């Protein structure tokens, strides 16, 4: 197999992972020469992802819970109309990481806003939210990620004196303080739990088979049981902050409702259900932006400022509550 590349001292995780992807792509000649191109797709502290031909290998975060990750991958295998199905049914260890294997899918083009698949994203979410929650599945990790972004901002504030970015941090922390505990994973999520993606954005959709197969959701690391409105809250927050045009928000919301999604009522004002998650994701986005600006000792750019400004308007307006859901 690929034991050499896996364990040789000095070999990077990315090259060991590429060897695994190559072996999975060519199971009959795992170490032989091949003409396929290798491409790193992501190399972040929480994930390293490489592609070899039609195979993608992902090394999950060093602190990923093995049992929870296995359950999440199994959900993807069971819902192939909604989530990209894994190539292997269970994660495998590689050094100190767990690795999963997936078929390559074609992503959304970041340079072509008009081609963004808003209806498909909404319909896939509605189907996901209507699927049964498997027993033992842990909570969706959206609120934990929002809390982590705010923690990072607090650490960055302690470390840097850059005045303009420090000034932007105050309203972000104030908006966070006004949210109920569940929005930061400090309390259980309210209401009936649905199967949720947990980290929806436009990088989480691919067409499989590439380049023009049906759209599927990818990345199950944050998938779990929880408040389904969380998965609608990023587009909702982008719309509220003026980053997503009303037409595109309407297309997304209408498609979700048409597909019978349970996160919002079938008609009328969706904001009582969306308000807390959309605030939390606005705060999360602003916290990450201000943290980056602090690290680079630079002011916020125009888009980041729009998100921080929305945080500044929040504390004066108490969060709304979905009917029948306690604080």
């Amino acid at each position, binding site marked *: 197999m690929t034991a050499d590349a896996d364990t040789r001292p000095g070999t990077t995780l990315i090259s060991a992972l590429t060897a695994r992807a190559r072996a999975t792509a060519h199971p009959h000649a795992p170490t032989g020469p091949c003409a396929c191109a290798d491409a790193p797709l992501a190399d972040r502290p929480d994930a390293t992802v490489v592609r070899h031909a039609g195979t993608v290998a992902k090394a999950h975060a060093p602190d990923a819970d093995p049992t929870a990750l296995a359950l999440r991958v199994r959900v993807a295998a069971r819902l192939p109309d909604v989530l990209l199905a894994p190539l292997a049914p269970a994660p495998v260890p590689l050094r100190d990481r767990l690795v999963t294997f997936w078929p390559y899918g074609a992503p959304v083009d*970041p340079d072509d806003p008009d081609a963004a698949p808003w209806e498909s994203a909404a319909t896939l979410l509605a*189907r996901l939210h209507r699927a049964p929650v498997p027993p033992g599945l842990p909570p969706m990790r959206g609120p934990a990620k929002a809390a982590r972004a705010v923690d990072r901002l607090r650490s960055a504030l302690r470390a840097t004196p850059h005045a303009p970015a420090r000034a932007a941090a105050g309203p972000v922390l104030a908006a966070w303080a006004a949210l109920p505990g569940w929005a930061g994973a400090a309390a259980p999520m309210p209401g009936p739990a649905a199967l949720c993606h947990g980290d929806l954005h436009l990088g989480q959709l691919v067409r499989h088979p590439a380049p023009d197969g049906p759209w599927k959701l990818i990345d199950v690391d944050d998938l779990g049981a929880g408040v389904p409105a969380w998965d609608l809250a990023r587009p909702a927050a*982008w*719309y509220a902050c*003026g980053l997503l045009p009303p037409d595109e928000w*309407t297309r997304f*919301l209408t498609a979700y409702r048409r597909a019978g999604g349970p996160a919002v009522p079938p008609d009328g*004002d969706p904001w009582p259900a969306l308000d807390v998650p959309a605030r939390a994701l606005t705060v999360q986005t602003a916290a990450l932006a201000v943290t980056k600006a602090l690290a680079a000792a630079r002011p916020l750019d125009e888009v980041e400022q729009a998100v921080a400004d929305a945080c500044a*308007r929040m504390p004066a307006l108490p969060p709304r509550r979905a009917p029948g859901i306690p604080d």
Partner: protein
Amino acid sequence: MQCPKCHAPMHTYNRNGVQIEQCSGCRGIFLDYGELEALTRLESQWSQPAPPPPAAPQAYPAAPAAPAWGAPHGGGHGGHGGHGHYGHQRHKSFGHMLFSS
């Protein structure tokens, strides 16, 4: 969408301006809220030489609802902000913000 009965894919058809979904498997029909009333209304107008009904009703004739903390030129404050703002920021925010955690 999938048929709630037999799970085959459903296809959308436009009948006199009313969108209906029909299952490609069992041929069952799904009507959204208000569509049955729209069809009944059309039926009652059938004998009259009325002009054709308007195209599919707009889900949101006005700007969609938005939270009060939203942007003045964007979704917030009733959403009456106009579209120039998006043309200005659209590409930047799309590639920059809408693809990251």
